[in-house]
C-alpha cells in the first residue's frame, strides 16, 4: 500500500520535471502556449471538482469567480504599473473578492436543494455577466480591452513555468485539503448529507467552505488566464467557461483531482485539433457538438470519467470480493 503511494509520488514528480524542462528542449511556441492554457484550465477544473466531485454540489455559476480573477488582474495591470508586484497583488485582490462573494452567495443558496441551487448559481452568474456588460467604464463590455503584462512574463517560457508552478502548488494544496479531516467530511456530505448532520457536523458550513475554496482557486485561474491572453472581455464570465470546467471534470473523472487535469488536457488538445480540422471539413467548426455528445454519453455510461474508471478497474483486480447481490432496479424515483 505504502509502496504504491510512493510510486505514485515518484511518477508525479517525473511528469512535473519533464513538463518543466519541456520548453528548454522544444522551441515550439504553439506547444508552450497550448500547455500553458491546459495548466490554467486544469486549475479551474480542479476547483470545480471540489464542488462537484468532493462535495456533490452542481454549480452553474463557476465562471463568475474565474471572471472576477481575470478582471481584477486585467484592470489593475491596466490602471497601475504592469509590474510583478501589482500582478501578485491583483491575484490576491481577485481571490479576496471571489472569496467574499462565494461566501455570501453560498450562505444564501447552499441550503437549497440541488435543482434550485444549480438554477440560482446560473442566475447569479448571469447577473455578473450583465454587470460586466453594462459597466463599460470599467470593463469596456463585450469589446474588452488589452493590457500589458509585466515585462518579466514577456517571455512565454517564464509564464509557462509560473503557471506550471501554480498548478503544482494548487494540486498539492487541494490534495491536502481533501485528505484532511475537513475534506473527509466534505465527502461524507456528498455521500449522505442527512447522515452527516446526524453525526453532529453542521453540513451547511462545510458546503460554504467548499464553495469558498473553489471560488478562490477559480479566481486564481482567471488571473492567470487574463495575463496569458493580455486581453480580457466579458467572455470570461459566460456559461461557456463553466461548461468547460464541467466537461473537463466529468470526462477526466470527478472526485479525483488528477482527473480534471487530464480532462483539461484531453479537451484542450481535442479542441485544438478539431478546430484545426475545420479548415478542411467545415463541420468541425462546430466541434463543441462532439463534446456535447461525448459528455452526455459520459454522464450516462461513463460517470466515473477516465481516472475514476482506471482506478475502479485497478481496484476490482486487487479486490475480487464479489459485491453484495444488489440487483439495480430501474424503478421510479420516490
Amino acid at each position: 500500500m505504502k509502496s504504491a503511494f510512493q510510486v505514485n509520488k515518484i511518477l508525479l514528480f517525473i511528469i512535473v520535471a519533464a513538463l518543466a524542462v519541456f520548453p528548454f528542449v522544444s522551441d515550439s511556441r504553439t506547444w508552450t502556449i497550448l500547455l500553458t492554457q491546459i495548466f490554467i484550465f486544469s486549475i479551474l477544473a480542479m476547483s470545480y471538482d471540489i464542488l462537484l466531485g468532493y462535495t456533490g454540489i452542481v454549480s452553474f455559476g463557476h465562471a463568475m469567480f474565474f471572471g472576477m480573477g481575470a478582471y481584477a488582474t486585467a484592470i489593475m495591470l491596466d490602471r497601475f504599473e504592469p509590474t510583478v508586484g501589482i500582478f501578485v497583488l491583483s491575484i490576491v485582490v481577485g481571490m479576496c473578492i471571489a472569496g467574499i462573494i462565494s461566501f455570501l452567495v453560498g450562505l444564501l443558496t447552499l441550503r437549497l436543494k440541488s435543482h434550485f441551487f444549480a438554477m440560482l448559481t446560473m442566475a447569479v452568474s448571469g447577473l455578473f455577466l450583465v454587470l460586466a456588460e453594462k459597466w463599460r467604464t470599467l470593463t469596456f463590455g463585450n469589446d474588452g480591452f488589452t493590457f500589458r503584462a509585466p515585462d518579466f512574463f514577456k517571455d512565454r517560457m517564464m509564464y509557462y513555468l509560473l503557471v506550471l508552478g501554480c498548478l503544482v502548488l494548487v494540486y498539492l494544496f487541494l490534495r491536502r485539503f481533501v485528505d484532511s479531516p475537513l475534506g473527509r467530511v466534505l465527502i461524507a456530505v456528498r455521500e449522505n448529507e442527512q447522515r452527516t448532520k446526524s453525526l453532529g457536523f453542521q453540513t451547511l458550513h462545510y458546503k460554504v467552505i467548499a464553495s469558498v475554496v473553489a471560488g478562490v482557486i477559480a479566481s486564481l485561474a482567471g488571473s492567470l488566464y487574463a495575463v496569458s491572453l493580455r486581453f480580457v472581455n466579458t467572455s470570461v464570465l459566460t456559461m461557456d467557461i463553466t461548461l468547460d470546467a464541467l466537461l473537463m471534470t466529468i470526462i477526466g473523472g470527478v472526485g479525483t483531482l488528477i482527473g480534471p487535469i487530464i480532462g483539461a488536457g484531453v479537451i484542450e488538445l481535442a479542441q485544438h485539433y478539431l478546430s484545426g480540422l475545420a479548415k478542411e471539413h467545415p463541420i468541425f467548426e462546430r466541434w463543441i457538438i462532439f463534446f456535447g455528445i461525448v459528455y452526455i454519453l459520459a454522464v450516462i455510461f461513463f460517470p466515473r470519467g477516465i481516472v475514476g474508471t482506471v482506478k475502479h478497474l485497478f481496484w476490482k483486480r486487487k479486490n475480487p470480493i464479489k459485491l453484495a447481490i444488489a440487483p439495480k432496479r430501474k424503478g421510479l424515483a420516490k
Partner: protein
Amino acid sequence: MSILLKVDNVHTYIGQYHILQGVSFEAKAGEVSVLLGRNGAGKTTTLKTIMGLTPATSGKITFDNKSIEKNPTYDIATGGIGYVPEDQGIFGALTVEENLKVAMRKEDDAALARQEYVLELFPDLKKYWKKDGGHLSGGQKQMLSMARAFVNESKLLLIDEPSKGLAPVVIEKVMEAINEMKKQTTIILVEQNFIMASKIGDTYTLIDDGETVQSGLMRELIDNEELKRKYLGIG
C-alpha cells in the same frame, strides 16, 4: 375452489435490502386471506411485490393462471387487482369525486353502478363529494381508498392495514365494509389487529423476517396459542 393468486417462493430486494426471503401462499377465489406477522415482517412488501411496485427479484406470482411477476404495475392493475395501500394513497388536492374518477378505467354503466354501490357502503363519501381528499379524516380517507379500488371490476383486492391509526368506532365501519366487499371479490388483507383479522379472514399466512412461516385456516390459528405467542406476541 379455484386458486386465484399463487405466490411461490418470492424474494424481493429494495435497494440492497433483502426484504422478502421466500414468501409463498395461495389465495382462493371468493375467500379472504389474511397476512399476519409483526411489524417489519414483510407483509406490506408482499402486497407491493404482488402489485409490481417493488418487483420480485426471484420467484413466481401467478394470477388468474397468468404469471405476472415481470409485469409493470399498471398492467397488473388493469389485469384485475385493486390496491389499497397502507398510507391510503389519496390524491390530496383532488376532490372525492375526482379521486374516484381517476381510478375509473371505463366509465360505463357497470362502473357507475359499482360507484353507486360503494357510495351506499360509505355514505360519508357522498356527503363530502366535492371536498378535497386531503381534508378528509383518517377514516374517510381509508373509505375513499377502498372505494377507489372497488370502482373498477377487480377480481382481487389487496388491502393493507385498514385499521391502522383509526379509532375503534371507525374500525368497526371499515370492517363492515370489507365484509360486504367480500361477497363480490377475493381479498388479501394485511392486518396487525388479530381480532379483526380473525373475524374476517378465512385463511391466514404467517410471515416473519420476510419468510412464510405457516399457512392454514383461520379457525385453526385462533386455537393455536403457541403459534400466536411466538409470532404475533399475543399472550
